[in-house]
């Protein structure tokens, strides 16, 4: 099975699935955040320089906010996403799937100091690769996860064909394989569809396009479509 799915059991007894994000997506998000922050700081220099020492003071406060508090504010107030994470559709969550708390966000972001040792996020990368859920040291201590935001699923209709009763009883697994074929067949090219359908020639007794149609009919039957 997929090893990048973390299951969280809720008090209602169902398992929710989270998909922790790997180091590449996270590094890109981090780089994007840095580009945005430094561009902002750089642009801010111009008007602030005109204010003289006052502008200098304000700029250093901005620098402090950018270095330490920007990720915390965005993660807590922006549903777990800094701008970079938003762009890469990542999100910070508590390990139990809940929104990240103030404390946890502060902790995981302060501990970037440790993850950054001895330079270029070496500790963070090692920790991300070694831990089961792609957690860097800050995530481990704060009990947080960076996950992929689930993509909204568009319903994939099974092509309209007359439903066809199954000629013999199939196991659940076999039935869901047929369903998956039915749903995906509109996205595959016809030649590939026929090739796949011919694997089940024993079941349908048909070849070519007729075999595909028969399988789609069975899929519609399984789903209860008419």
């Amino acid at each position, binding site marked *: 099975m997929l090893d990048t799915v973390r299951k969280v059991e809720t008090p209602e007894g169902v398992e929710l*699935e989270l998909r922790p994000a790997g180091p590449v997506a996270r590094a890109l998000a981090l780089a994007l955040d840095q580009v945005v922050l430094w561009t902002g700081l750089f642009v801010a220099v111009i008007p602030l320089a005109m204010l003289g*020492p006052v502008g*200098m003071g304000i700029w250093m406060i901005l620098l402090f906010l950018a270095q330490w508090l920007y990720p915390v504010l965005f993660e807590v107030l922006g549903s777990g996403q800094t701008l970079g994470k938003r762009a890469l559709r990542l999100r910070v969550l508590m390990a139990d799937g*809940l929104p990240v708390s103030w*404390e946890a966000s*502060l902790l995981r972001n302060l501990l*970037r*100091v440790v993850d950054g040792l001895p330079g270029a996020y070496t500790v963070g990368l090692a920790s991300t690769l070694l831990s089961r859920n792609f957690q860097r040291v800050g995530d481990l201590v704060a009990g947080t996860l960076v996950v992929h935001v689930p993509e909204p699923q568009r319903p994939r209709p099974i092509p309209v064909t007359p439903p066809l009763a199954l000629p013999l009883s199939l196991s659940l697994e076999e039935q*869901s394989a047929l369903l998956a074929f039915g*749903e995906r067949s509109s996205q595959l090219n016809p030649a590939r569809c026929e090739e796949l359908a011919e694997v089940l020639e024993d079941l349908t007794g048909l070849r070519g396009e007729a075999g595909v149609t028969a399988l789609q009919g069975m899929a519609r039957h399984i789903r209860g479509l008419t």
Partner: protein
Amino acid sequence: MSIRQERFEADHGELWEALERWLGGYPTLGDEDIPGAYRRLCHHVALSRERQYTPALHDRLQALALGLHQRLYAEGEGGFGAWRYLARDFPQLVRREWRLVLMASILLFGSWIAAFLVVRRRPELVHLVLSPAQAAKYAQMYDPATQETFGMRGPMQDVAMFGYYIWNNIGIDFQVFASGLVLGIGSVFTLLYNGIQGGAVMGHLTNLGFVSTFYGFVSGHSSFELLGAALSGAAGLRLGLAWVHPGRHSRLEALKDAGRVGAKLVMGAALMTFVAAAIEGFWSANTLVPWKVKLGVGLVLWALLLAYFGLAGRRRTAP
């Protein structure tokens, strides 16, 4: 398959759609109906897995359940609760962690006093800590003869220094805390380093007789700045200690505990350093006020701060 997926979707689609729209901010369901609706949804999630419905449906129900889970079990809307933290949680935490606070204070203030006494007794030993250039720079900064330029920093310059103190000093608090994770070495080192450096400078300037300028300048913000540094050090030591003395917990669990406590401590320490930066930026360099008054204000602030940590948040709230 007991119930065809199509039938299942037709039966419950309305509920799912209502929940999806409720999450999107539409009042499709009353708040009081949500827990019941969520439990039914959880049942559907379990059924869809059990009956191996299609991945598209499975993912849709998963996403919906996760969204509701987060909404229902999230911490209260109160969020950070700044007032409660300052009035109760922070001083209570400092008292509860008194051993670590004491340890950090001994490292900082002990080395400070030791360095001060050594330099007072043997003035030439200041050069163990400060290079001649540094010693000369400090001497020039606090020389009453150059006080004119030093004191007339002006409000513009004050803002610049305020910004610098925030960026530099609070940044150091955070670094001291985080570097504590490496066996506490970072925290211990920074506490000792600042203590020895501070004590040596204080002894050196006292030897030179620059009492009014030096003590006048530092007294105002010393309480907030030094106690803030000690507390961020204590927070770092807590992290380091979790590695070497996890007690009955696994090391990771001990670290998580230490992290929770440490984050709360360092948050307070950062606030104190922020106050210190404001005092240092806008009050300490003021030469219009006689230095003895500034010393008095500094001592009052020490007393108030210590009273705060000793007394705040002790009263029991009525049940």
